[in-house]
């Protein structure tokens, strides 16, 4: 009786251990008995990171951009239009003279392009696909903008490889959790982190 109990105990323990092993290191069976080794293998990708200076100048622009992004994630074109309008106004208020003279020309081009894109978004409250096209362009503009002006928060540039006939589309978010603004509820999880933009 005693030996039966011991054997049953051992069988259970070994079954448990092997089950756990299979679960955590599928594809690496037999390579290691350690529980920590497979965990390290799960994170082979290092997310590139760039650092920008700390600045409050872009705060209202980023606030409105992120509100616009959230509206598109929610498939809410009306709200996207109103956020687009506020973003347009915030972009117009940016004081170019606060920046290095050598950067003013490039920054003006960025702001002009961003304003045009924001304007299109605000004027197309009934065409969410059209809004999303301009939102994609906006993401590029604002990323280039904060490299020059600085940012008040950490941002992530995220990438959806399927958007725009598989050419891909990028956007900015304050979180590295994927909530796709190009597809909304149709494909909320499509995407990955491309770059982390942190503040010095």
């Amino acid at each position, binding site marked *: 009786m005693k030996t039966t109990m011991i054997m049953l105990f051992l069988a259970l323990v070994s079954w448990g251990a092997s089950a756990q092993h299979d679960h955590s290191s599928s594809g690496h069976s037999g390579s290691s008995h350690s529980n920590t080794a497979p965990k390290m293998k799960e994170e082979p990708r290092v997310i590139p990171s760039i650092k920008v200076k700390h600045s409050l100048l872009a705060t209202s622009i980023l606030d409105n951009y992120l509100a616009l992004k959230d509206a598109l994630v929610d498939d809410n074109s009306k709200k996207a239009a109103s956020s687009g309008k506020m973003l347009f106004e915030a972009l117009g208020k940016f004081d170019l003279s606060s920046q290095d003279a050598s950067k003013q020309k490039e920054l003006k*081009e960025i702001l*002009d*392009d961003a304003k*045009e894109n924001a304007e299109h978004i605000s004027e197309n409250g009934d065409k969410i696909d059209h809004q999303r*096209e*301009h939102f994609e*362009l906006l993401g590029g503009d604002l990323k280039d903008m904060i490299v020059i002006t600085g940012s008040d928060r950490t941002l992530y540039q995220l990438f959806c490889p399927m958007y725009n006939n598989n050419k891909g589309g990028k956007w900015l978010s304050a979180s590295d959790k994927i909530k796709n603004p190009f597809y909304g509820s149709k494909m909320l999880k499509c995407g990955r982190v491309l770059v982390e933009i942190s503040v010095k």
Partner: protein
Amino acid sequence: MKLVKRIGLAILIVLVGIQFISTRSNQSSEVPSTDFILTYKVPDEVGQTLHTSCYNCHSNNTNYPWYSHVQPVGWFLENHIKKGKAELNFNEFGSYSVRKQKSKLKSMASQIEQGEMPLPSYTLLHRDARLTPESKELLVDYLNALQDSLQ
């Protein structure tokens, strides 16, 4: 009855009167060096298609149709051209920043692809401005390739 006649006459006088207020201001024989077709040495076929289907509202020179003489249709048209040029002017394309050019090229390709441009209300009376599936593809491919080539 007399009142109706008077109102009718007044409307007629106004309608005749406004015919003398001409618009047709968007005309220029000069093609600046910043013109899209000159700047990018656009292939003939693409250039001709752009001329026929886009330049009337998106450049400094409009080939005015006969009905632009009829007011208030002509005014409506003029306002339309003004808006079109503000959005995109092929004659000034070369003066845009590269960033703006790339944005415009992307928008042009998608508007054509989706059949938003040329405007259906425009092609209704300008049958020659309609894009066949082949010319659509030609334009979209060209515009996308050009966008990718710009740095």
